[in-house]
């Protein structure tokens, strides 16, 4: 991570940390939404941006995480933050099972299959499979989380919980980006044949990207369940997957700061356009087209890491 990026993150963190003390509850809640979408978009970015796998069904993993957390909380009274890793694991396991047979599909075939998978999950939730999901009404009465005895209840409390998780995710995903795993994914995206030829086990890495991305979406799902205390299948519709997809591409596919800026834009713009009343989504669609025409690579495009001569250890 270079110095400029680090300074930008520090500045953004300082501004965000001050935000809950300056804004009213409504805008803090908007920022909470931004945080949740940023987490989802970061999780999708691993699959779509880094590995180049077209996935328009991220809401499925989000739903699995949220429902696992909700069921653990309401039936077994597990504290919701303890359920967080479990929901991550559940979403990861789900991804491993459903992605394995279709991982070899190319580009748009994978896109439509992931759309289909998302829809199947949503329909399964509506139809109350196994009697656990509460059908179209969903699950209510999910307990509030508590951290070190402090009960998290107000939007301000959730703001710190959600954005702390965003900060942790950004740190971890930057480390991942520069790891052997991250570089292998980028190689895979740029040229699959060459990657395979250089000894990258493409199927395995693709699957790992899917599983890791799903795990993060699942954990985000449990945060969402904790925040809302009610979840229903409507919250995990195709539209959610589309929004997260748009965030990644609009912000800058493969670029972590880009994806976060994208989340601010896609969640924030409709709020700012509230003045247009019913026409706000019309304006939103128009802005999307215009932005893609003028910034085809996204707002903050991915830039490969460049090494200076001084970075290379000299032979002694």
């Amino acid at each position, binding site marked *: 991570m270079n110095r400029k990026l680090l300074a930008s993150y520090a500045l953004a963190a300082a501004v965000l940390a001050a935000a809950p003390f300056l804004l009213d509850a409504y805008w803090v809640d908007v920022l909470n939404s931004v945080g949740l979408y940023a987490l989802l978009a970061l999780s999708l970015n691993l699959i779509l941006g880094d590995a180049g796998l077209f996935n328009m069904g991220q809401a499925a993993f989000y739903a699995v995480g949220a429902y696992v957390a909700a069921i653990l909380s309401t039936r077994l009274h597990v504290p919701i933050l303890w359920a967080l890793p479990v929901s991550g694991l559940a979403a990861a396991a789900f991804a491993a099972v459903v992605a394995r047979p*279709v991982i070899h*599909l190319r580009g748009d075939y994978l896109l439509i299959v992931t*759309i*289909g*998978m998302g829809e199947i999950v949503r329909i*399964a939730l509506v139809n109350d499979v196994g009697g656990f999901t509460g059908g179209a009404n969903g699950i209510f009465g999910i307990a509030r989380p508590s951290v070190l005895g402090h009960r998290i209840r107000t939007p301000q409390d959730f703001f710190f919980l959600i954005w702390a998780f965003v900060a942790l995710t950004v740190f971890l995903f930057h480390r991942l980006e520069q790891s052997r795993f991250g570089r292998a994914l980028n190689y895979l995206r740029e040229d699959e044949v060459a990657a395979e030829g250089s000894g990258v086990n493409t199927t395995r890495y693709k699957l790992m990207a899917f599983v890791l991305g799903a795990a993060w979406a699942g954990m985000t799902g449990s945060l969402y369940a904790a925040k809302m205390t009610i979840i229903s299948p409507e919250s995990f519709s195709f539209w959610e997957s589309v929004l997260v997809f748009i965030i990644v591409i609009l912000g800058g596919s493969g670029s972590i700061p880009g994806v976060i800026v994208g989340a601010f834009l896609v969640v924030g713009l409709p709020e700012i356009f509230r003045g247009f009343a019913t026409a706000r989504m019309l304006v939103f669609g128009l802005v*999307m*087209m215009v932005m893609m025409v003028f910034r*085809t690579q*996204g707002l903050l495009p991915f830039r490969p890491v460049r090494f200076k001569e001084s970075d290379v250890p000299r032979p002694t």
Partner: protein
Amino acid sequence: MEQFLQQLTNGLAVGGIYALIALGYTMVYGVLKLINFAHGDLFTYGGYLGLTLLTSLLLQGRLGAVAGVLVLAAMVMGLVGLLGVILERAAYRPLRESPRLSAVVSALGASIFLQNALMLIYGARVQVYPEGILPQTAVSVLGLQIPLMRIVVALVSLVMMAALYLFVQKTKIGTAIRAAAIDQGAARLMGIDVNRVISLVFLIGPALGGAAGLLVGLYYGQVNFTMGWIYGMKAFTAAIIGGIGNIPGAMVGGLLLGVVEALGAAYVSVAWKDAIAFLVLILILIVRPTGLLGERVAEKV
């Protein structure tokens, strides 16, 4: 048996509509490698324009039932086709050289724009077609009572598909479309105006989609502004099942999907109807990764 045949014919009618929409997806994909997510909304525009023209121009009274509907269909197809050409100019042409997913997001933006424009013009409520446009009688075929509309929908979609197939296979312009789909650069060197071919594809595809929208309006008697999402998704699924870029594939995929869905809804569960369609898609792709008839898209390595 009676129920089975009823569902089968219903599935063929709905499948014909899917296939008409799927042709628009598959033709655009063939030349641009772009999933035109706004295509489903162009289909919806067909249904709405049909309703407006029908009630405002009183074609029926002036020309009689059959001629009135034919003139109506021609007008709807022309207008929706024009809309498709404008859409390509505004939202896709500037992105032709950029990463493919940028064009996909532009298409999603166009879809949101078109859908909300329709909602602002007509309101969010379901719009109902006037009754008795075409006679609501049933025809007896081999002892089976089949609604006339169902036969009309199935026949119209089959005729349009056949016409398109012949056009693309047998005419000079059709050859140009196929050439542009295989290699745009080489087509240009052969003196084909690729931009015009793309405009033409964006005229024909949406025109067929608009016709499908009108058929849905006539068949079900109502349209709503969000129906483009689900019909579009189904039609795109049909295009993929048949093999994307492949015109006969879109027809086979559409009819197959319509029949599977109708039978699935009747014999398995109505609540799972949409899931059955996607499950069939996934199973077919696992066995045949490029669709039933194989894709017709040039792969650059």
